[in-house]
């Protein structure tokens, strides 16, 4: 007897696509109806995924769902199957949460743009495709979803086609995205040629039987799949297009890109490496993923230090943070995967939040260039606080969530470095990257929110409540996942990690009990991998501690307080006493613009930065060459070592 929840994975995906069609048909004229339809679809899918998450992650079931009831015949999967274990449910949760919050935000944010019906159609298509991608159990179905995703992304990137660079970014995305899809498709075709099946569970069992080592077709397929999903997750050297796309797209869409589209790439990599080809046990594959991750981390953050566009800067940080995730999952240890998944979730939260802040600033001032901003903290106090929360989260300051996941990742890498010296280097890079992240967010804080205000910002107002609401929700989630890591790990992360580690159970659930044993000869057991840490971190107690000291101090501060001179009326000229000190001169406008900050650092790395800027040439041909070159390197490397 099937539980009704088991229909939800398919329905949650369908309802988003259905919403897309309904918006196209009925939402052309009526603005309210179109928003209602879109939000209804997003809400329905979010609620369904919540039910699924409870059923799968908390109750420990695995949902297997054969579309059209095409169950396997003679142990061969013919139909399309959906298999939802804790890993899928975890990513599905991220996807629908992002969709839902982005939807709320879009209502006001997109109200000034023309063509809202196209926007909502594409938005729902994108969400539906990513949700389908993370829920499916069929690798070709995954490819179909990738295609839909890529084209929705292209259209949304170029959505503000009147703005500078949007069409160009769309075109770049089209080229590189198609390249990624092609790689994936070729990889899938090779796997199909070898195993005659497209079901992921069955593929996994078949490949485990023959083994990948020495089988150059398999290795080629593996390299192609890594490249394909690498392009979707924008790891270096496939990251070039991300910067353009994130910058050109509306903020609510940038949030979708960083919140779920590149998470889809990460999900794909985890599925391919851990489940389908089961290659993560091999040290050489770990080295490859960790190398890609480490380079992404460092290149992303150093490029971000150089940017002066708010959203472009955030885009490079996305690359850097995905580097952390890839490094962590590339370690192949349970703690590593846990850290990687935790960081993926945190990245969805804080980076989405940062993009929303960038959008709020754009909504209020019409600018994204950091050199033309300043003093917004007084005009938009709530946005400023939210931005600070997000910035501290991404920089990993305790007690925010970025710290927890980075902490887990450092533990994992450092524990691994007991075996090999190279991982020590990775630890150092990861820690330095974190500091550089803080540096570049200081730059944003200084240039956008603090510093002297500009006269043209006199009429700037805080963004409306419907935009602040999703931002506050995410900010609270950022703090919550930071102060209650134990709760989050137990309820959400550990089941997902166990799902990643229990390959045979995944196969058996899909293909029927005993299938794995028949094919590979090893029985299916659920592995609950122990996450061994080499340090300690219990933030709740510290929070108590932080709180007590803070209270004690505030008491002292309040009693010792004296009256303060303060003018906060923006219209009136400040008196001399409260004016900024300018060495005695009249206070004039003179800010240190973002590009000038940290020159002491940049000066010493001049050669490196010049080279890096040369590589980011802006020519799509170069980018394609990089992608193909990376593919070639992957193929050669994997063929040489496996």
């Amino acid at each position, binding site marked *: 007897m099937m539980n009704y929840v088991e229909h939800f994975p398919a329905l949650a995906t369908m309802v988003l696509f259905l919403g897309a069609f309904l918006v196209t048909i009925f939402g052309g004229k009526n603005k309210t109806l179109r928003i209602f339809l879109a939000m209804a679809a997003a809400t329905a899918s979010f609620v369904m995924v919540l039910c699924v998450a409870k059923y799968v992650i908390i109750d420990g079931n695995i949902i297997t769902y054969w579309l059209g009831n095409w169950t396997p015949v003679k142990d061969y999967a013919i139909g399309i199957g959906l298999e939802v274990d804790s890993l899928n449910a975890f990513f599905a949760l991220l996807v629908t949460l992002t969709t839902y919050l982005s939807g709320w935000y879009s209502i006001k944010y997109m109200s000034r743009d023309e063509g809202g019906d196209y926007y909502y159609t594409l938005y729902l298509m994108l969400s539906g495709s990513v949700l389908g991608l993370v829920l499916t159990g069929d690798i070709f179905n995954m490819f179909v979803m990738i295609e839909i995703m890529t084209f929705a992304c292209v259209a949304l990137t170029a959505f503000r086609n009147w703005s500078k660079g949007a069409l160009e970014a769309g075109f770049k995305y089209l080229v590189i995205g198609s390249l990624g899809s092609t790689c994936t498709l070729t990889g899938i075709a090779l796997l199909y040629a070898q195993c005659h099946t497209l079901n992921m569970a069955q593929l996994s069992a078949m490949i485990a039987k023959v083994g990948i080592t020495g089988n150059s077709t398999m290795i080629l397929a593996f390299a192609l799949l890594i490249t394909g999903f690498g392009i979707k997750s924008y790891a270096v050297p496939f990251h070039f297009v991300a910067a353009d796309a994130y910058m050109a797209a509306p903020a609510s869409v940038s949030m979708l890109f960083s919140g779920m589209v590149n998470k889809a790439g990460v999900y794909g990599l985890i599925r391919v490496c851990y489940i389908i080809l089961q290659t993560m046990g091999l040290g050489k594959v770990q080295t490859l993923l960790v190398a890609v991750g480490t380079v992404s981390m460092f290149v992303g953050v150093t490029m971000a230090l150089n940017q002066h566009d708010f959203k472009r800067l955030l885009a490079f940080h996305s690359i850097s943070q995905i580097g952390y995730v890839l490094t962590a999952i590339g370690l192949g240890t349970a703690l590593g995967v846990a850290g990687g998944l935790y960081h993926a979730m945190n990245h969805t939260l804080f980076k989405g939040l940062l993009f929303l802040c960038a959008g709020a600033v754009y909504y209020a001032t019409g600018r994204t260039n950091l050199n033309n901003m300043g003093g917004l903290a007084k005009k938009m106090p709530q946005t400023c606080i939210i931005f600070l929360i997000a910035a501290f989260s991404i920089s990993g300051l305790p007690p925010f969530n970025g710290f927890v996941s980075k902490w887990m990742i450092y533990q994992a890498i450092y524990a691994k470095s007991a075996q090999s010296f190279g991982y020590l280097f990775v630890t150092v890079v990861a820690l330095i990257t974190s500091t550089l992240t803080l540096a570049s967010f200081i730059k944003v804080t200084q240039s956008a929110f603090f510093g002297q205000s500009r006269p043209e910002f006199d009429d700037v107002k805080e963004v409306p409540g419907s935009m602040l609401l999703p931002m506050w929700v995410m900010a609270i989630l950022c703090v919550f996942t930071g102060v209650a890591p134990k709760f989050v790990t137990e309820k959400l992360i550990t089941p997902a990690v166990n799902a990643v580690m229990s390959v045979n159970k995944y196969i058996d659930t899909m293909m029927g009990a005993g299938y794995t044993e028949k094919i590979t000869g090893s029985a299916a057991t659920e592995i609950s991998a122990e996450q061994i840490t080499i340090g300690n971190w219990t933030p709740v107690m510290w929070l108590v501690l932080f709180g007590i000291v803070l209270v004690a101090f505030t008491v002292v501060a309040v009693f*010792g307080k*004296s*009256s303060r001179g303060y003018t906060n009326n923006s219209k009136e000229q400040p*008196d*001399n*006493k409260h*004016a900024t*000190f300018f*060495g*005695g*001169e*009249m206070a004039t406008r003179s800010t240190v613009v973002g590009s000038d900050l940290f020159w002491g650092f940049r000066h010493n790395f001049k050669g490196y930065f010049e080279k890096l800027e040369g590589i980011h040439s802006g020519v799509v041909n170069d980018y394609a060459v990089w992608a193909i070159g990376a593919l070639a390197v992957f193929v050669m490397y994997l063929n040489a070592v496996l």
Partner: protein
Amino acid sequence: MFDNLINKSAAKSPWLFHINAGSCNGCDIELVAVLTPRYDAERLGFRLAGTPRHADIVVVTGPLTAQIKDRVLRTIEQVPEPRCIVTMGSCPASGNVFKDGYTYAGPLSKYVDVDVDIAGCAAKPETVLEGLYQAAMILEQKRKDMKNKGGQI
């Protein structure tokens, strides 16, 4: 409870901000001489602050030229209460040889209440130390007065 302590500390840790209002540099180097090992003003808690916001005592040297008058007054206004204003050398108090010059806009006491005048051209370090010490005492008194006046600090 802490008021007494704060009043005492006000005299024991006066930080200086030095403004050159068109001085010939003679007084300026004498002020620096006060901080050298021989006179060591730091033993009384004196310290040069980098910004008027940190200062307790503003030391003005030079005759207050027309060009710099507004800047000096603005800077003095940016010093938080309680504060002392000390003129150093004859120039800011009387104008000295610059008195009838067309650039002269002084004396400083025309615009603000000066607490201590340190005489001399250039003032001797011993005199400077004496004057600054007096200013520190005045600071303590000012702090007390302010507290008694009803907390407008």
